C-alpha cells in the first residue's frame, strides 16, 4: 500500500507546489509556474485515486486506516500527532477535493492567465489544497483544526487577492474575522472534548461519545455543549446564520477561488466536521435540533436574498449559503449521509456554476452585473450548456444529481418535522426560480451590453474542458445514490454506512421506508419537483415572457423587495450593533479614557503630585534663617513632647 502508507504525500505535494512557486517562482515564466502548480495537484489527484484504490483492498477492520507520522504537540499529558486517517467519509471528500480542485486548477490556468499575480495565485491555491487535504485527512480534531484554519487563511489571501481593491481586502478581512468567531466556538469545543474524553483523536473520542448515554432531549449536557460549540465553528466556516455574512463578500476573489473554496470545498468543511462528529451530535438532541433549524432557516433566508441579486456571483454565493443550509438540515435531521451526498453533488454543480459564471465574466470582460448581459446563449455555447446542466442539477430536475441529493434530504426532513420539510420545499422552489432567473437574464433575452466595448468570446480550452467534465458530473453524479436506479439500493449510503454506523438508525430507517412505502415516497418526491417547476415557470414568466413584470412586482411588494435586495440589512445591523460600538468603545473608552486618562493619568498624576508636593516642601526652605530656626524649634517641641508624653 505505498500511497496509503505514505499518505502524507498527498497533501505535501500541493504544499511543495505552493512553496516552490511562492518562494522561488519570482522569475519563473508563467508556463513553468502553472506547470508546477498543475503537476502538484494532478499528482495529488492521481495519488488520491490510487489511495482510494488501495483503500478498497483493505479489510473492514483496517478501517479507519490511521497513520501517525510525528508528534506535533505534546505537553503535560496532552498529545496531538500529525496523524492522517482514511475511511469512507474521507474517501469521498478526498475525491471531491482533489478532483474538483484539480479541475479548477486547470481552469485557472486559463482564467488567470493575464493576471500579474499569476504566481501568487497558484501559490495560494496550492496552499489551499494542502490545508484542505489536511482538514479531511486529519485523524484528530486538532489537525483538522489546522486544516480548518489553514483554509481560512487561504480564503483570506485569495479573497483579498486583488489587494489594490479596498473592497477585496475588506472582504478578506471579514471572511477571516467571521471565521475566527466560528473558530472560537470550535476551539472551545475542542477543549471540552479533551476535557471530556482526554483526547482529540477521532478514533478515541467518537467511539466513546457514541457509547455515552445521550443527553436527554431539551437539556444541554456535556455532549450537547460540545456539539453546539463545534457547530459554532461549522456555522462560521459554512456560512450559516448568523455568520454567513462573509461569504457573499468573498466573491471579491477571483472566480475560480469562488468555485473551489467558496462553493465546492472549504465552505463544506463545516458539514464535513459535523458529519465527522455525528457520534457526538446524535447523542445531543438539542444540538441536532439547532443544527436542523439553523440549516433550514439559512437555506430559506439565503434563497430569498438570492432572488433579487443582480450580480451573477452574488446570486451564486447566496445560493451556496442556501445549499449549505440544506446540508445542515440533513445533518440536523440525522441524515448525515444525505448531507455528505449533497455536499458532493453541490461541489459538482456549484463548482460548475461558478466556473461557468467565471467564463461568462471572462467573456464579458469582467462584467458581473446580469442586467448588463443577456442573449449570450449563442456566443458562448459551451458555457451556456454546461451552466444549463448545472442549473437543472441545482434546481432539482429529476435525474440530475441535485435531484437525488435534495430529495433525500427533504425526505429525511419530512420524517422529522413537516415544518422543516415544508420550508425545504419552498426553498427548492425559490432555488429553481433564482437559478433560472440567472440563466435567463444571462443567456436569453436582449443583449443589454455595449457591443462596441465588449467582445464576447468563448473561453479557451483549458477553461471549457473542466466545465464539460463538471457538467457530466452534475448530471450523473447522483446516480449511484439513487435507489430508484439501482434497484432500491443507495450505494452511497451503503458505502458510508461503516462510518455512520453508530448513528445509522435514521438512515437505516430511511432505507427501510424506501423499501416499504415506495408510493408515499413517490408522492413526496413530487413536492420538490413541483416546487421546482413552479420556480422555473415563474422565472420564465418574469424574465422571458414579460420582462417588465419583475419591476412591477418589485414596486408592488416594495418593502419585501427592499428587505431582500438589502439582504435583510444584516450587514448594516452588524455594523451598527457590533462593529461600530466595539471600535468606539475600544477607541474612546478603553484607549483614551481608561488607558490614557485613568491608568496613565494615575501614573502621571502620581508624578505630578510628587512634583507639586516637592515644590511645596522646598518652599519651606525660604532662605531665611529665622524660619529655619522656627522649624527647628517646632521639631524640638515635637520631639521633646514625643519623648515626654509618649515614651513611658
Amino acid at each position, binding site marked *: 500500500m505505498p500511497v496509503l502508507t505514505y499518505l502524507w504525500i498527498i497533501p505535501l505535494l500541493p504544499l511543495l507546489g505552493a512553496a516552490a512557486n511562492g518562494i522561488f517562482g519570482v522569475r519563473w515564466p508563467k508556463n513553468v509556474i502553472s506547470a508546477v502548480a498543475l503537476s502538484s495537484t494532478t499528482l495529488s489527484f492521481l495519488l488520491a485515486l490510487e489511495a482510494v484504490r488501495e483503500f478498497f483492498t483493505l479489510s473492514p477492520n483496517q478501517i479507519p486506516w490511521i497513520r501517525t507520522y510525528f508528534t506535533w504537540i505534546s505537553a503535560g499529558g496532552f498529545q496531538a500527532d500529525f496523524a492522517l486517517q482514511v475511511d469512507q467519509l474521507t474517501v469521498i471528500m478526498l475525491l471531491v477535493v482533489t478532483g474538483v480542485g484539480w479541475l479548477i486548477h486547470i481552469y485557472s490556468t486559463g482564467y488567470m492567465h493575464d493576471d500579474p499575480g499569476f504566481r501568487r495565485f497558484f501559490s495560494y491555491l496550492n496552499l489551499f489544497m494542502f490545508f484542505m487535504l489536511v482538514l479531511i485527512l486529519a485523524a484528530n480534531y486538532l489537525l483538522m483544526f489546522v486544516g480548518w484554519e489553514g483554509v481560512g487563511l487561504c480564503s483570506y489571501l485569495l479573497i483579498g487577492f486583488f489587494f489594490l481593491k479596498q473592497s477585496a481586502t475588506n472582504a478578506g478581512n471579514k471572511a477571516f474575522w467571521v471565521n475566527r468567531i466560528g473558530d472560537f466556538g470550535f476551539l472551545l469545543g475542542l477543549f471540552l472534548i479533551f476535557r471530556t474524553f482526554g483526547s482529540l483523536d477521532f478514533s478515541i473520542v467518537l467511539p466513546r461519545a457514541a457509547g455515552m448515554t445521550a443527553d436527554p432531549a431539551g437539556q444541554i449536557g456535556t455532549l450537547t455543549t460540545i456539539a453546539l460549540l463545534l457547530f459554532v465553528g461549522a456555522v462560521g466556516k459554512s456560512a450559516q446564520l448568523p455568520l454567513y455574512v462573509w461569504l457573499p463578500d468573498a466573491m471579491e476573489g477571483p472566480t475560480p477561488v469562488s468555485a473551489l473554496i467558496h462553493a465546492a470545498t472549504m465552505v463544506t468543511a463545516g458539514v464535513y466536521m459535523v458529519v465527522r462528529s455525528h457520534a457526538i451530535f446524535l447523542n445531543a438532541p438539542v444540538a441536532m435540533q439547532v443544527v436542523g433549524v439553523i440549516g433550514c432557516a439559512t437555506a430559506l433566508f439565503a434563497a430569498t436574498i438570492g432572488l433579487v441579486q443582480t450580480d451573477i456571483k452574488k446570486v451564486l454565493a447566496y445560493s451556496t449559503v442556501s445549499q449549505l443550509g440544506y446540508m445542515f438540515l440533513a445533518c440536523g435531521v440525522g441524515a448525515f449521509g444525505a448531507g455528505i451526498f449533497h455536499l458532493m453533488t453541490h461541489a459538482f454543480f456549484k463548482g460548475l456554476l461558478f466556473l461557468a459564471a467565471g467564463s461568462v465574466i471572462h467573456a464579458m470582460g469582467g462584467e458581473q452585473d446580469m442586467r448588463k448581459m443577456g442573449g449570450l446563449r449563442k456566443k458562448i455555447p459551451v458555457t451556456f450548456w454546461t451552466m444549463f446542466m448545472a442549473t437543472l442539477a441545482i434546481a432539482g430536475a429529476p435525474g440530475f444529481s441535485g435531484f437525488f441529493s435534495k430529495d433525500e434530504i427533504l425526505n429525511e426532513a419530512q420524517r422529522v418535522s413537516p415544518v422543516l420539510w415544508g420550508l425545504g420545499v419552498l426553498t427548492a422552489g425559490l432555488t429553481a426560480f433564482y437559478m433560472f432567473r440567472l440563466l435567463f437574464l444571462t443567456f436569453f433575452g436582449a443583449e443589454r451590453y455595449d457591443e462596441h466595448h465588449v467582445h464576447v468570446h468563448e473561453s479557451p480550452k483549458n477553461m471549457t474542458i473542466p466545465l464539460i467534465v463538471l457538467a457530466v458530473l452534475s448530471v450523473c453524479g447522483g446516480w449511484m445514490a439513487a435507489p430508484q436506479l439501482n434497484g432500491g439500493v443507495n450505494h452511497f449510503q451503503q458505502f458510508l454506512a461503516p462510518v455512520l454506523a453508530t448513528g445509522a438508525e435514521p438512515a437505516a430507517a430511511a432505507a427501510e421506508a424506501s423499501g416499504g412505502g415506495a408510493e408515499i415516497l413517490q408522492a413526496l418526491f413530487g413536492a420538490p419537483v413541483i416546487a421546482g417547476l413552479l420556480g422555473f415557470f415563474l422565472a420564465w414568466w418574469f424574465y422571458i415572457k414579460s420582462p417588465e413584470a419583475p419591476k412591477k412586482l418589485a414596486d408592488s411588494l416594495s418593502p419585501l423587495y427592499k428587505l431582500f435586495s438589502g439582504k435583510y440589512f444584516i450587514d448594516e445591523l452588524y455594523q451598527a450593533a457590533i462593529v461600530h460600538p466595539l471600535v468606539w468603545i475600544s477607541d474612546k473608552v478603553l484607549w483614551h479614557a481608561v488607558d490614557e486618562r485613568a491608568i496613565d493619568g494615575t501614573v502621571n498624576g502620581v508624578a505630578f503630585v510628587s512634583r507639586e508636593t516637592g515644590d511645596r516642601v522646598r518652599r519651606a526652605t*525660604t532662605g*531665611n534663617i*529665622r*524660619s529655619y*530656626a*522656627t522649624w527647628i*524649634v*517646632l521639631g*524640638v*517641641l515635637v520631639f*521633646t*513632647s514625643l519623648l*515626654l508624653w509618649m515614651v513611658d
Partner: protein
Amino acid sequence: MITPQIAIFLVLAAVAVAGAVSLIVQRHPIHSALSLIVVMVALAGLYLLQGAEFVAAVQIIVYAGAIMVLFVFVIMLLNAGEEERSNVSRMARFVGAPLGVVFLVEVAYWIGRATSHLGSAPAETVSTRDLSTLLFREYVFPFELTSFLILIALLGALVLARREESN
C-alpha cells in the same frame, strides 16, 4: 520662706531675665549687647551664690569682658544701625515667636516639675585647685583640643577678615 539667699537669687534672676527680655526688645544692637552684658553679670552673681567663684570670675573676665567687648567693637566697626521692626518672615513672626514662648514654658515647666523636690545643695565653695586638677588631669585631652579650637578660630579670623592683597 524667703531667706537672704533666695532674695538675692530673686533679684539676680529678675535682673537676668530683664536683661534677656531687654535683649529682645531693644532695637539697637548696642543696646542688646549691653543687655546681654547685664545678663552675664547677673549670672556671675548667681555663680557666686552657688559657690562657683572661679567660674564667676571667668564669666566676668572672659565673657563679659572679652567676648562682649568684641561684640561691641564689631558693632561699632560696622556702624550697625537700628533694627527694622517690620517682619518679612511671617513664619518667624506668627509661628516662630509663639512657638518660642511655648518652648520656654514647656521646658521650664518640665524642668521645674522634675526638679522641684530636689531641694537645695549645700553651698560649699569649690577650690580652684581641685578644679585645675580636674582640668589638667582628667580633662587634659579636651583641654588640649580647645587649644586647637582657638587656633582654628585664629586661622579663621585671619582667613576671613583679611583683605585681598590686590585690593
